[in-house]
């Protein structure tokens, strides 16, 4: 017989899967469903934040870096696909992306060349963010930089990356981003049918990432991360190399953010520096805080709710939305530090436990983290 917590996890995941895979596609038109798909790509970032920030106490205000890198990897591949000799025959240099031609660049830069390959691009969208996270993590965590300082530095890096992209108009499209993306290996991503398929692919990938993070959190590594968050020195003086554990979880979150970014490019059809910088990075943290930084499914719901509210609000009152969002964040921090997940924990969980109880006795000696 499964333990109570395992049965609860199955229940939560099934509910989430049912909402995303059945209820929403049945209830929404293609346009709205594509919007939900776009929001879900942010959820790849927020569930990583649950592991990094909620579990391990590493607050990164620069997750947009990794989201953006993943997105750019996918955008570069798609742009090369769209820049066939046939499609660009009017350019002074046919066969290179249009924005390069506008900027008097006459040959494809070296770092674009590997992105001709789909498999390279798919690997790069996860590996490049993860490698950058390892480099940042090694530089920070080995020197015991943490807390607010770490948050500020990640923010500075996000800002630097945005400036770099904006400044490189000819090489990566500058402030306009990489636009006019059409096909993925010959498959047109702009049709309604493609949008449905991308939506389902996104949901399945998100559920897979949730399962992976659930495994990590339930492992001894997950317990060490929580121990480290509360008593870092005690973990260090129990024989652990604390920095390596932080680097691991930070890189894992970065890789997931990269997947989210790549999906975002596919669903939205372009990538631009506005999704890399400080503002989106902080917004991701707000989604996570609203949903609950200690709950993976909470973070997914938080992401969906805040974005849904943003879309409906900013359709009618575009200028007050940012204030509303700031107010929401302050209210959550002040009155509901555990986010929406803590509302569930306090009011609904006792009933769920009673229903699921039966004969599943807990003998695991473990405070299982709810998914």
């Amino acid at each position, binding site marked *: 017989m499964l333990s109570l917590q395992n049965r609860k996890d199955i229940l939560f995941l099934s509910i989430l899967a049912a909402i995303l895979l059945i209820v929403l596609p049945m209830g929404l038109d293609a346009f709205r469903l594509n919007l939900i798909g776009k929001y879900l790509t942010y959820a790849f970032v927020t569930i990583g934040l649950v592991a990094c920030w909620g579990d391990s106490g590493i607050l990164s205000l620069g997750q947009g870096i990794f989201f953006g890198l993943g997105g750019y990897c996918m955008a570069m591949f798609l742009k090369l696909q769209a820049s066939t000799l046939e499609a660009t025959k009017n350019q002074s240099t046919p066969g290179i992306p249009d924005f390069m031609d506008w900027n008097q660049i006459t040959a494809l830069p070296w770092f674009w060349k590997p992105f001709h390959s789909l498999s390279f691009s798919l690997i790069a969208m996860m590996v490049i963010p993860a490698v950058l996270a390892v480099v940042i993590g090694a530089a920070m965590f080995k020197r015991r930089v943490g807390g607010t300082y770490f948050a500020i530095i990640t923010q500075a890096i996000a800002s630097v990356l945005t400036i770099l992209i904006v400044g490189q108009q000819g090489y990566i499209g500058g402030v306009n981003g990489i636009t006019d993306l059409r096909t993925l290996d010959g498959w047109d991503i702009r049709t309604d049918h493609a949008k449905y398929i991308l939506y389902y692919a996104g949901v399945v990938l998100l559920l897979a990432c949730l399962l992976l993070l659930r495994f*990590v959190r339930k*492992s*001894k*590594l997950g*317990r*060490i991360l*929580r*121990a480290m*968050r*509360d*008593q870092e*020195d*005690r*973990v*260090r*003086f*129990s*024989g*652990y*190399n*604390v920095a*390596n*554990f932080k680097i*691991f979880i930070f890189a894992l979150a970065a890789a997931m953010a990269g997947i989210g970014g790549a999906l975002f490019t596919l669903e939205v059809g372009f990538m631009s520096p506005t999704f890399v910088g400080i503002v989106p990075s902080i917004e991701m943290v707000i989604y996570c805080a609203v949903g609950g930084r200690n709950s993976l499914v909470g973070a997914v719901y938080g992401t969906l709710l805040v974005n849904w509210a943003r879309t409906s609000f900013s359709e009618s009152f575009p200028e007050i939305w940012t204030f509303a969002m700031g107010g929401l964040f302050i209210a959550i921090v002040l009155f509901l530090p555990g986010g929406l997940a803590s509302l569930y924990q306090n009011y609904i969980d006792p009933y769920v436990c009673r229903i699921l109880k039966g004969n599943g006795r*807990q003998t695991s*000696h*473990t*405070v299982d983290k709810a998914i």
Partner: protein
Amino acid sequence: MTIQNDPLLSVENLSVSFDGFKAVDDLSFQLEKGEIRVIIGPNGAGKTTVLDLICGRTKATSGSIQFEGRELTRLKEYDIVRAGVGRKFQTPSVYEDLTVFENLEISYPSGRSVFEALFFRRNKEIIDRIKEISEMIFLDNQLDRKAADLSHGQKQWLEIGMLLIQDPALLMLDEPVAGMTVSERVRTAELLQRIIQSRSVLVIEHDMGFVEKIAHRVTVLHQGRIISDGSMEHVKNDPKVVEVYLGH
């Protein structure tokens, strides 16, 4: 066991200064295998700094620390722990979000690298060892409780248990009975006397009754230097020690 005279820990000319202030000044002492040494001294004498230097939390300005023939001043903290040095902090440091069982499990010396920890599985050996330790520290019926819910004294015991499960050759305790109730103090003294028999121990303690009960040898620190060293009887009657404790 051929070389009986080889000390377990040998500290030589150890100094550390913080912004010009010498917290530990040219300190040398040796700790034999199986010896229980208590360090006493007034506030600010550098007692905790000495433990910090040995376990690598503070880097020495000069001098050397040899432990079983290895130079500790060059090792990382986690390597010093793996070499066999366990350290208890002054305030109880336990993982409040985890159960007593999980607290002990994290301290059990296996699965210490990232990937070993990710694929770590509890086996019977580990569970038995955790049960055994939990009995020693009076927490055998609290294994499933969150550490946050324990009393102050129970947290101290838990941290002692977390050190024991590492089975260190050298155990360093920083004020293990501070802040305890009288009855907790009695049980802790009992517990410590039981667990320190088989290993070398370095203790900082202010409770003189407790010191008298356990110490093989007492070292008195004052302003980063050793001013007296020997049996409790010798130290108590040393005029320099009396001067330091009563003269100010």
